[in-house]
């Protein structure tokens, strides 16, 4: 039963990715990303991580995707209809490189140990206890990092006239 669900998710992500590759307007790109992220959150549920699935929807689709939309809005890219080239000039050589990359991944993939295992669910409680138990200092470090990022963004966007 879950196999069909995952195959369906695979299909969705495949189409969203293909759309991402071909679509011209960045807005459409962002929406396509949103679709694939939602599919992923369902996959996370299947893999027994409900808390992370919820986070994926709230944090990723909610915050980061919105961030993208804001950026596109701020960039004030005109709603153009003319044919804006989507690929940069040197197209073919990187395309070949992509084929090579997939080839080597498949080759390596074929040498993998089997992963037949039954999946139990790990609730948000254990995640919370882990985050503030053994990984306490790590979370503090990330907190410091976020604080630094705020200061950095402020620095990037300082107007010359505005002094601190």
């Amino acid at each position, binding site marked *: 039963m879950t196999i069909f669900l*995952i195959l369906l998710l695979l299909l969705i992500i495949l189409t969203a990715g293909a759309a991402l590759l071909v679509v011209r307007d960045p807005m459409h790109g962002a929406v396509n990303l949103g679709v694939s992220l939602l599919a992923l959150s369902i*996959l996370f549920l299947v893999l027994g991580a409900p808390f992370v699935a919820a986070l994926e929807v709230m944090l990723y689709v909610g915050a980061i995707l919105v961030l993208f939309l804001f950026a596109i809005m701020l960039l004030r890219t005109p709603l153009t209809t003319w044919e804006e080239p989507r690929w940069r000039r040197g197209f073919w050589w990187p395309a070949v490189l992509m084929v090579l990359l*997939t080839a080597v991944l498949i080759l390596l993939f074929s040498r993998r140990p089997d992963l037949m295992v039954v999946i*139990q669910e790990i609730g948000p409680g254990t995640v919370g206890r882990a985050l503030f138990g053994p990984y306490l200092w790590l979370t503090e470090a990330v907190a410091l990092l976020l604080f630094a990022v705020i200061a950095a963004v402020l620095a990037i966007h300082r107007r010359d006239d505005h002094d601190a």
Partner: protein
Amino acid sequence: MTLELALVIAALLFVIGMALIILRRNLIFLLLGIELLFNAAMVIALAGGARWHSVTGQVLVVFMMVLSGAALALTLALLLRVKQELGGDTVDDLRQLREEVDE
């Protein structure tokens, strides 16, 4: 079987992310590509967590989300400055710094 499929999805995300970075012309799509890469990492982490029945997978995912979000925030801020200073948001506008190949 589900983990193998999850890994296939992760590989798919990885390839699409990489393709976006090197093929697309608009800078936004590059950033989208990076996000896809991070998502691929999350899927693999969760697959690992599922396989070893331990919470570390989810902890990894949380940290990855936070850090990718932080990185993205800064990059988008810089993107606005680039648009403001260099007047364009495509890959070709970022070519002031390069090796002056004389002939």
